[in-house]
């Protein structure tokens, strides 16, 4: 095991707009190989924090560094190793998907041969190989989002900041994209900084979570750590599913007899749209 390196470090990072602090003394450290989930309501200052990390906005005070490079003073070095997927990603609509990716590799000074191989790989990875010569103007929102993810990984970053990468994508696509992110994290050792409102996704893939509200980090740590702090309930719940041909009354009785059981409740399975949807499409496809 190599010793892990600090990828992102902010020290009292602050941004003030018209006297109001939008990001207020943010202290955050991300280690190499982590998938960090950055949560927070709209207008919490998440995007502003990201812009400062990338050096696209100057902080009012405080410092931010990526792999030891100061984002404000050496933005080019930071941007060479960091990819950013903005919330509303846009592409040159007259260019094809391939051309858009190629432009990104050119801007990153990736040699042409290497770039061409990389682009093909990325396109098949995000599932756009068939439409690579189609103008992006004709793409759907979901396809653009996938292409956006392509632009993130095509420059072979060490650190990727993804702002709402799954908006506008169908549930099955979401699953694919999450797997893609996990794969990039495990195989390429890309540290991920993920902003999302979809808690389920964050819970599923993130190793560390930060909850951001009104410019301040209100909770930080792994899911277990946070839940230990917040949840004071003494009892744990266990859900048991069984098929409905069984004699339920008898089962309930036998569970009740076990040691330490406080309460047994019988309920029909909650019908969630997600379950139906996944089932339908997995069987249908």
């Amino acid at each position: 095991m190599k010793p892990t390196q600090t990828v992102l470090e902010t020290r009292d990072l602050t941004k003030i707009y018209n006297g109001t602090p939008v990001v207020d003394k943010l202290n955050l450290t991300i280690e190499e190989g982590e998938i960090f989930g950055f949560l927070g309501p709209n207008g919490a200052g998440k995007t502003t924090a990201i812009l400062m990390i990338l050096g696209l906005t100057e902080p009012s005070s405080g410092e931010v560094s990526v792999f030891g490079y100061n984002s404000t003073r050496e933005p080019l070095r930071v941007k060479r190793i960091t990819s950013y997927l903005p919330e509303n990603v846009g592409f040159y609509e007259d260019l094809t998907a391939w051309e858009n990716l190629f432009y990104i590799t050119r801007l990153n000074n990736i040699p042409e041969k290497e770039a061409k191989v990389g682009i093909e790989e990325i396109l098949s990875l995000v599932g756009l190989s068939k439409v690579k010569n189609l103008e992006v103007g004709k793409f759907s929102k979901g396809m653009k989002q996938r292409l956006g993810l392509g632009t993130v990984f095509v420059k072979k970053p060490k650190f990727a900041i993804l702002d709402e990468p799954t908006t506008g994508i169908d549930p099955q696509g979401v699953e694919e994209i999450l797997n893609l992110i996990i794969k990039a994290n495990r195989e390429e050792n890309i540290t991920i900084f993920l902003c999302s409102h979809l808690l389920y996704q964050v819970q599923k893939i993130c190793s560390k979570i930060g909850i951001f509200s009104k410019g301040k980090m209100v909770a930080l740590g792994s899911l277990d750590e946070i839940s230990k702090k917040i949840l004071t309930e003494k009892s744990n719940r266990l859900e048991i599913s069984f098929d409905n041909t069984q004699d339920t009354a008898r089962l309930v009785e036998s569970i009740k007899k076990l040691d330490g059981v406080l309460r047994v409740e019988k309920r029909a399975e909650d019908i969630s749209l997600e379950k139906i949807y996944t089932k339908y499409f997995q069987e249908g496809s």
Partner: protein
Amino acid sequence: MSGLGVVYWKELADYLGSRKFIILFLIVALTAGTIIYVINQSVSSDVSQFSGDFLFLKLFTFSAGTIPSFIFFVSFFGPLIGIIFGFDAINSERSGGTMSMVLSQPIYRDALINGKFLAGITTIAVMLISIIVIISGLEMAVFGIIPTMQELARIGIFFLVSIVYIGFWMGLGILFSILFRQTATSALISIMVWIFFSFFILMVANVIADQVAPLGNNATLELMGRNENIRNMILRVSPLILFQECTTAILNPSIRFFGISTALKSMEVIPGPLSIGQSVLVVWPQFVILIALILVCFAVSYVVFMRQEIRST
């Protein structure tokens, strides 16, 4: 310059394949056609207009009746072309969401402005060269006039000044595209500035000159001179006037001064064409002001753009 070359080639490819380019091409073809036609018509009706030195250059400055000269065409349509290439340079990237994508790559911010500007100028230069070559070629074919080296050099300088002039308007368009979020706003404001400097400045200059130095029925020559000087001073704020003075002197070697003083001073000098260096000296101040105007546009653009937030929403 990190990224400048990449942005330049991408934008150039965009421009050359765009609708703008086709519109521009039509304008060029029409202009060249009109000018050749006019010259042809007037020469066949009255050959005496075309005699003396620098015949080849005369074809560029020649205007007949309602059809203006080539210089006027460039001074009038040049700004429009510059504005067409500049007005949506930055704000269209912003509204399309491509700006945050491009600027999160390792390039300097000014590479985006410079790359777009240089690509636009290249496109316009290609246009201008082709129109000059078309006109020259047709003239040589139709009238059999062969340009001298000096005439060629003067045409070269004329080309350079035109590029600087159109470049100024493009720079102004880019500046407005940085200042205003909506492409419609930046287009309208660019066109307003163009109209002001093309038409209204004439009225403004007249009004102010007449206020400061009113000309009565029996105005002295001195007063008339003063009135004229004030008028010219105000007019020279306009890039359009600067360009017209510049190119007129370059393409017409006998011009030594501008304004009413021309008539007065020319009584004292021996008539005859100036050498090319002397012609350049005559319009040097105008040329420098044009360059200065571009630099101001760029300086303001850089300062504003560097401080702007790059948000995708």
